[in-house]
């Protein structure tokens, strides 16, 4: 039982270690890195935007619903939406969605390459496949996903403002005033730390599952599903650890 858990963890860290070798051709690695930036970033832009806007909108409506005391100023709604979106929704919720979108894609792509012997073909050519196939994906995720988190936070707040003004809960001026009141820049830093951590998990865990697929189409599907499940659990676990470590008063 213990071996069943420990062996894959060891194998995962060995894969990460083997990624670091001198590139056979830096230009080709750069090309692959840019390709992955486009795949992960541009490919997820649509879903991230939609989720973020609605996430902010729902936050505004639900916060207003709960703040029934007339002594609490409406600007508080904007403050609550801002902090919720920055601290939790933009980094965690978006990364859980990205674990499904990007993670399954990475696991599926590498799994298919493994099963159809394309990874073996690259190995025969003398290419370090872990460095060429896995490293650019992780590097691209580390660059692009924090950007998506920032974008998500901005769109979430904008969605909240839109929903608040459209439904008459709060005026635009009140919302803007609330946004600027008591802003803690450390929260944005915390969101970025989460973004980088989750980006690493979202890309490396599915890469491990995809790279080590054995079998056929069915096993690729299983690896893809397992990679998403494990990535989501890892994100939630890391979320708690980071909150416990970095948000201590």
């Amino acid at each position, binding site marked *: 039982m213990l071996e069943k858990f420990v062996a894959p963890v060891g194998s995962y860290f060995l894969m990460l270690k083997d990624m670091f070798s001198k590139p056979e*051709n830096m*230009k080709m690695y750069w090309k692959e890195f840019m390709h992955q930036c486009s795949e992960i970033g541009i490919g997820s832009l649509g879903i991230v935007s939609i989720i973020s806007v609605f996430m902010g909108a729902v936050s505004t409506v639900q916060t207003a619903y709960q703040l029934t005391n007339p002594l609490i100023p409406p600007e508080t709604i904007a403050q609550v939406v801002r902090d919720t979106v920055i601290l939790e929704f933009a980094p965690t919720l978006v990364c859980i969605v990205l674990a499904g979108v990007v993670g399954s894609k990475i696991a599926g792509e590498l799994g298919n390459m493994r099963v159809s*012997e*394309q990874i*073996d073909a690259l*190995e*025969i*050519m*003398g290419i370090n496949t872990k460095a060429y196939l896995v490293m650019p994906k992780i590097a691209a995720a580390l660059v692009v996903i924090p950007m998506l988190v920032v974008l998500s936070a901005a769109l979430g707040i904008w969605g909240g403002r839109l929903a608040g003004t459209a439904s008459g809960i709060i005026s635009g001026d009140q919302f803007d005033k609330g946004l600027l009141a008591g802003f803690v820049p450390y929260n944005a830093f915390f969101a970025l730390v989460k973004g980088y951590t989750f980006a690493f998990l979202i890309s490396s865990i599915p890469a491990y599952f995809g790279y080590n697929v054995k079998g056929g189409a069915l096993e690729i599907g299983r690896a893809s599903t397992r990679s998403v499940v494990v990535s989501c659990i890892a994100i939630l676990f890391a979320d708690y650890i980071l909150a416990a470590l970095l948000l201590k008063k």
Partner: protein
Amino acid sequence: MIEVKGLRKSFAGKTIINGVDVQLHPGMCNLIIGTSGSGKSVFIKCLVGLFQPDSGHIIYDGKDFTAMSVPEKKEIRKEIGMLFQGSALFSSMTVEENLVFPLDMFTNWDRKKKLDRVNEVLKRVNLEDANKKYPAELSGGMMKRVGIARAIVLNPKYLFVDEPNSGLDPQTSGLIDQLIKEITLEYNITTVVVTHDMNSVMEIGDHIVYLYQGQKEWEGNNKEIIFSKNDLLNDFIFASEFLRDVKDMRMLEETGKIANDRDMAKLTGEHAPTLVPPPEK
């Protein structure tokens, strides 16, 4: 030349390759034959370094591949071309991109020189007009030919071919065999082919190694194989109805019960042999 000395490989306690010694010669098609599960694919994967042998040595032109460091192995691999059973073409790339990829990775040539080389090898495998096609648009035979083109695009010293005829009709199989043979002679490379196709054995088997349960059971060439006295090999090569007829014919000839002018080479031709009745006493 590739020398294999005492090669052993096991998986989960089960021995797959059990002490194989063999020399694979340049300018020849070296065929590794055997039934399914005899260890052919594991053997070839050990040779190219996809599997690490448990013991034994694989020596490429005097250099011990098994004792090399990872960077040294990478250098040897630059001299290796391989055609996989399923061709292993990069599905998201066109034929041209598949062939340019190794050139991009390992040469500093300009774009024109790379494209010239791609067109040269595509012409060599009779696929001049396939540059812009994707693997999904190619037939099985065309995919094999693109796989061969990619394997030779960097002028390798060693060519490994895993089951070149799997999934192909006999006519296309013959063309692929012919292509492998021609390329081997033209570039004077050491070609190692894993197959269980008897047509390939008879067509291109300059040097044949028969593996049985992970051990070398017989070694020879396509002229000797049909006259082998090895029972295990005979069970393998005379497994088909047609070849059993050939075997019967051979036995008749050996006992003097067959017309003297019959040429044994014709027995493997397109027509099934007709037994000549023994002369009446």
